[in-house]
């Protein structure tokens, strides 16, 4: 299991479009990909789960990947969140 923290910088938080981009990246990997924010945990492969976490601009998320390709998955997810998820 590997994890890393990253801050969301999308102005309107993780609404449908950036959440969709995150999920599309996440499903490329075999590993399970989740993130923690306060006391909620969301599945990064599910748009509904990501939207339900109600992530706002400036929130810090801790991504946790577990599985065979966990290292690659974590690196890719952190990179895409940092890059602003297409915004």
């Amino acid at each position, binding site marked *: 299991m590997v994890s890393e923290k990253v801050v969301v910088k999308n*102005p309107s938080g993780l609404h449908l479009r950036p959440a969709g981009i995150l*999920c599309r990246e996440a499903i490329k990997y075999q590993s399970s990909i989740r993130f923690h924010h306060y006391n909620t945990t969301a*599945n990064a492969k599910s748009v509904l789960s990501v939207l339900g976490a109600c992530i706002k601009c400036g929130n810090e998320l801790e991504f946790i990947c577990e599985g065979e390709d966990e290292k690659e998955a974590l690196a890719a997810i952190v990179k895409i969140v940092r890059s602003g998820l297409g915004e």
Partner: protein
Amino acid sequence: MYKGTDASAGIGIGKAVIVEEKELVIQRETIIDSAAEIQRFKGALETSMEQTRILAEDLATRVGEKEAEILNGHIMLLSDPMMTGEIESMIQKDLVNSEFAIENVCTMYADMFASMGDELMQQRATDMRDIKTRMQKVLMGVESVDIASLPEGTVLLAKDLTPSMTAGINPANVTGIVTELGGRTSHSAILARALEIPAVVALSGILEAVKNGDMLVLDGSDGTVLVNPEDEALAEYQGKRAAFLKEKKELEKYIGKPSVTKDGVTVELAANIGKPEDVDKVLQYDGEGVGLFRTEFLFMDRNAMPTEEEQFEAYRKVAIAMNGKPVIIRTLDIGGDKEIPYMGLEKDENPFLGYRAVRFCLDRKDDVYRPQLRALLRASAFGNIKIMIPLVTCIDEYRAVKALVEEIKGELDEKGINYNPDIQLGIMVETAAASLIADIFAREADFFSIGTNDLTQYTMSVDRGNDKISYLYSTFNPAVLRSIKRIITCAREAGIMVGMCGEAASDPMMIPLLLAFGLNEFSMSPSAILRARKMITEYNTEDLQAIADQAMSFTTTAEVENYMREFINS
């Protein structure tokens, strides 16, 4: 006559077609073979996704990628593993039919989004209900209403239009849209504007007042709807429709053009807004900035003061949307004329001469002014925000606000919070006092914006709402004109920006005078911008000097008005 919310400008005239979605009756049925039922669900899911994909592609080619986005979002939601997993496990565990499992799971998500309270999440709730219905229709073999093949000259009437319904609308056949629900920012309104179909929304009760085939007239610029109008009214609206279409075509040529006079004087054409979502209109009409963002909406119709965070979100939203273009935000302008119980404002004998605007704010620094200014400063890190103080009468007020802003900057520095250190602090010039000492203000303030509505009212000592004396209320009164000219001259001499955010800024008779006086920025309602740009590009400021000199030589309002009317019609 009915009045709803104006959602998409233009006049629509045609025969009413009421579009009603048949309410699906979802019953719980017990199934025996859960594996077969799951296959049935998967098949319906596939078909729903395929249908949505076709609609999205059609919309993208017919209207635009941006408009198809919402349907692409639906495809994402339909393919969500969490939702499909829950539906499948419900079928398996409870041995229920797919329709029922979909109803349960999708409604649960819709309710969750609806309870989040944020506007974007409300939209997701609508999306969830839309995809739920789509899957159920596939399962039950119910055909959707075929909106794509309505007869020509149809005015579409519906309780509400779902994204999948609106996607099929063909502007060649649909001349107008009227809905009972929705708002200016709902999907159907956005799409109506993109398709340039006149639309009136949020008109409750209209479905009861109209039968299929009734003649309907709607004015999407003011929200009016007429049902079976008299010939006279019909002819009037037909004329309006022709004029609207002609002017629209002519004005569209000015989108993206600079606001520059024949002799090369560039001015800024900005917009007045009252809510963050009004920015859409500003961009649609190619506004070069926001000249006045009234912040009162944040404080009205509620039981408690908005938090700093809430204000910050609203200001930041506008700053980001305007993408570096100037956004002048006016600090709270309320007084005893507004009933805001939680504010503790008492009824004032003379509310417009009383405890209001900056006077009130400076007296209530800790609970009112400081949070607002802090929110403004924090939001300034996200765009080109400028702060404007209303109802200033003496320099002490300006200095007090300036000191407060500096103090808050210090606090933000300590906490390492970002803001624009060079944020401009200007004043709204709208009192006779501020006008008379405009030269003093110009030495310290970063910019002026002339609020002609109040300036006229205060200069003429006239309440324009009082019919018996409203004849005195005219921006063309020589006293008001001298005041305006003086304010502009003082600003120009000090080298600061001077704008105008009252109604006069878009008045065709006033624009030539303002250009001659040297006004830098004209701020008006977004829909007036292109007309103003057209006018400005047709003038030469050097030629206008003689016109302005002549106008200023008259002694009565009537003389000035007649002269300017003749000039613009010549």
